[in-house]
């Protein structure tokens, strides 16, 4: 992992942005997480996580078209940056390393 650490919720958001690819904006991210992972996400929590991730350089964003359904406000679409991808990979990497290091017997609960 680099200097910038990444939290669990941030990781979920980052991954979801990647999943949604070109349709990743506020509400779609929120709903995707809610459907796929069955967990409640408040607009506030998501919004702070998004802007934090953008500040760290894991995400970048640009405005899309304004639509009537949003009261004439434009959507802000997010995209994972290469740096973000690296961060995600490094998280996965560390996890993998840790998994591999676990001796077989540790999870053998027959004897427990």
């Amino acid at each position, binding site marked *: 992992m680099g200097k910038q650490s990444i939290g669990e919720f941030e990781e979920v958001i980052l991954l979801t942005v990647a999943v949604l690819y070109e349709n990743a*904006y*506020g*509400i779609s991210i*929120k709903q995707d997480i809610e459907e796929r992972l069955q967990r409640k996400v*408040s*607009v*506030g*929590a998501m*919004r*702070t996580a998004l*802007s*934090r991730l953008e500040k760290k350089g894991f995400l970048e964003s640009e*405005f899309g078209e304004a639509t*009537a*359904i*949003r*009261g004439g*406000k*434009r*959507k*802000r679409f997010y995209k994972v940056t290469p740096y973000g991808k690296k961060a995600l990979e490094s998280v996965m990497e560390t996890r993998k390393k840790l998994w591999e290091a676990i001796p077989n017997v540790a999870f053998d609960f027959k004897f427990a």
Partner: protein
Amino acid sequence: MSKQAPILPPKLPLRFLRWFCSPELLEDVEGDINELFGQRAQQNQNKAKRLFYWDVLLLFRPGIVRSLNIFKGQNNNVMFKNYFKIAMRNALRYKGYTALNLLGLIVGIVSSMLVLLWVSDEQNVDKFHAQGDAIYQVLRNMKQSNGQVSTGTSIPKPLGDLVAAEYSEVTEVTQLSWLMNMSLERANETMEEGGRFASPSFLSMFSFKLLDGNKETALSEPNNILISRAVAEKLFGSNWQSEALGEVIKVDGQFEQQITGVFEDVGNDSTIDFDWLIPAQAYFTANKWVEDWGNGAFETYLLIPDQTKIQAVSNRILMEIKDHTKGNPNAGDEELMLQQFTNRYLYSKFENGAVAGGRIDYVRIMAVVAVFMLLVACINFMNLTTARSSRRSKEIGLRKVMGAPKKSIRIQFFFEAMMLSAVAMALSVAIVMLILPLFNVLVDKTLTLDFLSMNTWYFMLGLTFVVGFLSGSYPAILLPTFSVVQSIKGGVRKQSSFAVYFRKGLVVFQFAISTLLIIGTAVVYKQIDYVLNKDLGMNKDNLLAVSIEGDLAGRLDTYKSELLRLPQVTAVSGASGNPLNYGRSTSSANWEGKSPADGYEINILLTDEDFIETSGMQIVQGRDFDSQLQDSTNFLINEVAAELMGFDDPIGKKLSFWGIDGQIAGVVKNFHMRDLYQPIAPLIITCIDPSMSSVVLVRTDENATDALAAVQGVTKELNPAEDFEYVYIDQEYAESYSNERTMRTLANIFALVSIFISSLGLLGLASYSAEQRSKEIGVRKVHGASIGQVLVLLSKDYSKLILMAFILAVPIGYYFTSDWLAKFEFRTHLDPLVFIIACGIVFGVGILTVVSKSYQAASINPVKSLKEE
């Protein structure tokens, strides 16, 4: 569904969101929650609205809320930040000066805060009554034939009844007895407590807090009694709340009184003090003399709610006593007047029937002292800042070059002064809190800094502002006037002559105040000393006054002979009171040649044959009482009485009072029955009925503690039921001047503080001028000047200033101190030595400060100061 008008999200949360949300996020965030609302609204509008509120609320979090940018975009604030920074740097760079400055301010603020706390506490006495402003006390002015008017509070009872019945402007009348000591007894618990008899309206007129019982009915039956919480706790323990009410206690060993109420202990903020209350009716029924217009009885208070009617009531009540005592040969010439109850604590001194001050004199003096202390501290600040201003001249010059107008430089120095004063204030508050307990002991009060009260905060903020403004004003006006070129070129060597004179003027003023305070202290000290050591006409040392309680009254002779058998006791006598604090008078005295039209109040002291010997008084004419002779109708009078009666040779002249005819046997040298503010009153001493004594005076030998123990032993033996109650006459006497002694201590402290602050200022100025003139000193020394010569050179200027301060302070000091002394009937003379000593002290301290600072400069090797460039 699509045909319906689009449902809009609630406006209020949206507006809130737009207010707090950081601008770069707003559009996106608002769009998101709008979209979300639209989706939810299709299912349930109300729920959607609720959730919308909730979403907005959850959005209110760091990261989304925009950063506080009060400081952004306003140039002023940038400047203030800069002023703050520069002020801090300056303060830290010249730590010594900052400390000097702060110390002066802190000492000034602390002492003035303490004094002002005391002043406000004095002003709060008797102010807790809800109707206080509408309560008026009736006072009587009795004209004596010698032209003096004595003002008293005991008012004939029929007057109160008359006012209650006939004066429509007066809605309530309360009669209240003087403080009486009586024993309260329940089961095996007995105690002696002071209390008062009061009319039923007492509780509704005054706002004493009732903890238990009914305000309306508690004083309605003669067999009722109310007791204080302290008494209740002593009688009933901690369960008094459930036990006290309705219980019967025995008062004065004979009356059964039923407890109908318990009131909160009366605090120091009330001039009416009492630990029990019994309905006045009980006293009136037992003492028929109160029904006579000729007899002064209780204090009488009137409730006059309509302020416009006061004058009418005063006019109408003026002659009531005189009108109702027409035809009574003993009636005096007297008038009645009203005093607002809330004024009675501070304005308690009367001369010729009008208010002539009282404690208010002290309050005013102290308030002035507090203001002076602050002024001295502020002047210090001004002086130090302006003297140091050349240090800042480059900075000021540069600011001006960069385009700073005078106004902004002025603001800068005000800002700096405010900052320092705020810091000083914060430290002062901490120090005040630390030393308040000590101060309380000193002034015998329970002062506190009440942070819950807004007034405290207003006061502290106000003081910070005033001090900041005062001390910053002169630097702020002076410094911006420096010329740019000069200040950048190399400091302002020569300050304008006005600035120099002004600073000198301030020093003069400072030292004048210090001198004044020291003169004041010295005079107060001398007078108090005079009072405490004055020959009072009797020997007050080692004289014990034991109160006669219970069984002792009937066994006075036994008690006396028992006491006399003690080796430590040299003489014993009964008396009707402490001879140094005595007031029991009659207007019924008659003597040979007295014109019937003349009315005189003459004091009567009841004693026995041994009184003169025991008290150590002197007989100047005639003889003392003699136990061998039948002296019950022979009287002694004092010199004042002899003069009043106009006898050349009073011995053997006929004298009568209280219907007893007798003659004068001797004249006793004047002694002080009252405090030294008052002239000595005429007095008759009689040994007609020793059993009427209320104290036994016991003269003991030098070994006071031993003697006291022995006297206590005898007293306890004869009177086991009662506590041994005694006072030392000299201690009691000293006690009666506790105000003056407090003043003396305070004046001492403040004189010290003010000279301390002034010297601090002088120290700063002297070291500054020594620094400024370091080259000059160097050159002088190279040319052969000695250290002493340099010292004289440096301190000459300041000695002139201090001498000028004396010229200012001495006449003012003389005026005020002689004015204060004039209040005493007996006083020390104003010694010029006092002024000389005061000036000497100030001069000594001042010059010592300057010299010690200059010495450093003068003793430095001239090479050092000259090499520096």
